[in-house]
């Protein structure tokens, strides 16, 4: 029988972070849809949603209400259990990744709290590995959805997505291993700490290459344009979620944005110093008048805001790519993964290991 103190401790250490994190993720998943529609529209010289609220600000709410009240259709010949389980697996795996993400160093919220509290739910020692593993399991949701729908378009979408996710997991994994090698840890907050002097993106020559590999593989992992073959509209209707409607479709849609957030968060944590502020040449020019002043102002911004800023920049970057590039053909997609990214990632890893051993970084 746990006493009051234990229950209270549990609520404070686990309950509050989980609730805050959940509401943060859900609000983001809703409003990133609006952001995507707005960004795409303006890049195509349109306006996007304008009528639901001021500049369409209530559009996600309207969409959510519509998803909820739509008829829940399960095709007659579908595999009922697998059909309804697939979006849940996809969603849970997308949620789970956030558990290991550190949103900032331990903080006392500008002196409001008596002691410092961590800004993560769990400080996993195998954080990166855990997130990549969850992304791998999320693939099962996609395959199950494609198979259970009993629809040739869904099946094709599911197959494509399985092949694509498995192919791109390899260069992505090697890029992540390169980072882990540079940081000497798989723990995400330790990876951030390792970048306090120098972000990994500016560790030449492996940093930029590993980041490029991670970026391309990340776009492919989240099934987004130009690698959105699993849901290629012009070929496969909607891919693996062709038969899904109502809230199940909404779940797939939201989980996609959550995956995008995780990939962006990982990119900013592993290569762009996580919550570390931007500093202009701290080593060479750090002491000079105006630059030192700018650096001080930049360092005064709370670390969590820095991380969120980087997160939204990467999400914007994904939308930007989607608005610019046309979709790849399927054989081109596989060629890029196996003939370009994989050798490149192996070479990067080799160079990084050599540099580490020689003590050059």
């Amino acid at each position, binding site marked *: 029988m746990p006493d009051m103190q234990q229950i209270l401790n549990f609520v404070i250490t686990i309950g509050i972070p989980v609730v805050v994190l959940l509401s943060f993720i859900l609000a983001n998943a809703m409003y990133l849809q609006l952001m995507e529609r707005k*960004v795409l*529209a*303006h*890049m*195509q*010289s*349109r*306006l996007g949603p*304008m009528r639901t609220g001021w500049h369409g600000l209530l559009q996600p709410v309207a969409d959510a209400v519509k998803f909820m009240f739509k008829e829940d259709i399960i095709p007659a010949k579908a595999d009922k259990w697998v059909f309804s389980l697939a979006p849940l697996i996809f969603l849970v795996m997308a949620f789970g990744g956030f558990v290991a993400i550190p949103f900032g160093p331990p903080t006392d919220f500008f002196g409001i709290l008596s002691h410092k509290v961590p800004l993560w739910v769990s400080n996993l020692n195998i954080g990166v590995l855990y997130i990549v593993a969850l992304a791998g399991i999320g693939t099962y949701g996609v395959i199950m959805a494609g198979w259970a729908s009993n629809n040739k378009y869904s099946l094709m979408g599911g197959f494509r997505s399985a092949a694509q996710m498995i192919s791109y997991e390899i260069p992505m994994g090697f890029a992540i291993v390169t980072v882990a090698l540079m940081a000497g840890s798989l723990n995400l907050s330790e990876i951030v700490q390792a970048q306090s002097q120098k972000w990994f993106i500016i560790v030449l020559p492996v940093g930029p290459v590993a980041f490029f590999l991670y970026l391309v593989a990340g776009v492919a992992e989240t099934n987004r344009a130009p690698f959105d073959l699993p849901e290629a509209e012009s070929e496969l209707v909607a891919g693996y979620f062709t038969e899904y409607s109502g809230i199940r479709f909404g779940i797939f849609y939201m989980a996609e944005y959550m995956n995008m957030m995780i990939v962006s968060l990982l990119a900013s944590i592993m290569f762009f110093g996580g919550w570390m502020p931007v500093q202009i040449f701290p080593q060479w020019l750090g002491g000079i008048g105006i630059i030192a002043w700018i650096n001080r102002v930049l360092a005064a911004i709370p670390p969590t805001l820095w991380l969120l800023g980087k997160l939204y920049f990467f999400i914007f970057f994904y939308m*930007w*790519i989607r*608005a*610019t*590039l046309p979709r790849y053909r399927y054989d081109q997609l596989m060629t890029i993964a196996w003939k370009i990214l994989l050798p490149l990632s192996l070479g990067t890893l080799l160079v990084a290991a050599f540099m580490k051993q020689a003590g050059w970084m």
Partner: protein
Amino acid sequence: MNKLKKVLRMIFMLEIVEGMALTLKTMLTPAVTRQYPTFKRKSFAGSRGLHYMDRDDSGLKERCIGCGLCEAVCPAKAITVVTTKGPNYEKVVSAYELDLLRCVFCGFCVDACPVNAIKMSPNFELACYSRRDVFFTKDRLIAEGDKYLGKKGGAGNDQ
């Protein structure tokens, strides 16, 4: 040298960078969309919309003399003109009917009219809830004319 340039362009993906620059530039320029129901363009000169009937110089009755030229020239047979004999043996236009469901808005009736009685306004927003509303009698055409001529100068506000 040219080949090296090509290879370097490929390695650094300059074409993708150029494309990204273009989309970013497009995003920062204002969108071309006009918010239609709240923002309406000014109509162009000579645009052919809903018909109306002018009043004659006395302002008491229609300008139409019942010659039937518009009825004859109408390719869609949308216009029906019925004339009768008045008390002083003059010609009276007892009915002038226009069926907008048939009308193709070619404007031939306007060209054919010898006294400029039937004209077209730039009003193109003709949606309505009942079939009766698209069937225009003489009185309705005159009422449309009063409505249009009362506030001549276009249907909306322009930028």
